[in-house]
């Protein structure tokens, strides 16, 4: 796979249709974004790691079956996302009911804020997961050197100063700023591509 293909996998408006085939590479693109979203929301709703995995599996299994049968793509209404939200909410609710019947408390983080509607913050989580996927694609693309990528992470994500990063990696401090701007521009371009694949978050 070329660097260009790694950054911008070939897509078309049939992206969602292609998900009817779980062996399709499209599934991986889909799963890399939506799997972590479902998992994160399940954890925030107070489910433990194993229960959250079960929710992910149930949602994805149901979605795959639906895609193979009657699901109709409607980009204008983002129907696949609406479907995922509903199924995620239901599956989290099912686990909670089991928990309550068993008398077990919820143990996730942020339980009070998301307890009423576990998918309330879907859009925020999706926006962030897309960026995480952008970062992953960029890292594996070869479009940016490992050293520059590390410089970006240290400076932009771990709040090290330009002087500290420069000293540690042997890069001029001025260059650290350029790396940050270039990397953000690349991430934004990848994010636009993901919007083409799945619509706006």
């Amino acid at each position, binding site marked *: 796979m070329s660097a260009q293909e790694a950054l911008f996998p070939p897509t078309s408006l049939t992206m969602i249709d292609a998900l009817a085939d779980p062996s399709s590479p499209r*599934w991986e693109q889909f*799963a890399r974004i939506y*799997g972590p979203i479902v998992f*994160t929301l399940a954890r925030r709703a107070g489910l433990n790691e194993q229960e959250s*995995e079960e929710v992910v599996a149930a949602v994805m299994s149901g*979605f795959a079956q639906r895609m193979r049968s009657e699901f109709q793509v409607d980009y204008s209404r983002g129907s696949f996302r609406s479907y995922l939200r509903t199924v995620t909410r239901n599956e989290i609710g099912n686990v909670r009911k089991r928990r309550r019947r068993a008398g077990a408390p919820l143990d996730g983080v942020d339980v009070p804020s998301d307890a009423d509607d576990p998918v309330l913050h879907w859009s925020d989580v999706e926006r962030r997961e897309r960026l995480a996927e952008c970062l992953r694609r960029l890292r594996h693309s070869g479009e940016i050197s490992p050293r520059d990528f590390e410089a970006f992470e240290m400076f932009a994500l771990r709040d090290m100063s330009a002087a500290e990063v420069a000293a540690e990696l042997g890069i001029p401090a001025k260059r650290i700023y350029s790396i940050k701007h270039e990397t953000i521009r690349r991430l934004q371009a990848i994010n636009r591509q993901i919007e083409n694949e799945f619509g706006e978050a």
Partner: protein
Amino acid sequence: MWFRRCPTTEQLDDFVAHPEVENPVAEHLPKCEECRAAVQSLLAEKHVLDDLRQATATDLNDARREQIVDICRDAARGTPKDAHA
């Protein structure tokens, strides 16, 4: 301190990254449209970085994300979860 000329890109960058720190850039901006535009652009970048930090600060590291992708793939194919064990 004040700027005889416009601040450098790095100085503008530091101003946007650390708004809590007193910075002479703040006094320069009302007088310079070009620098205000540059700061607007940097603020948009900062917004992306804030989201990115939150995305990477969860307990979902790369290895865990891969596991979740595997779960999705197996679920979609109808493969039992422990089939790879």
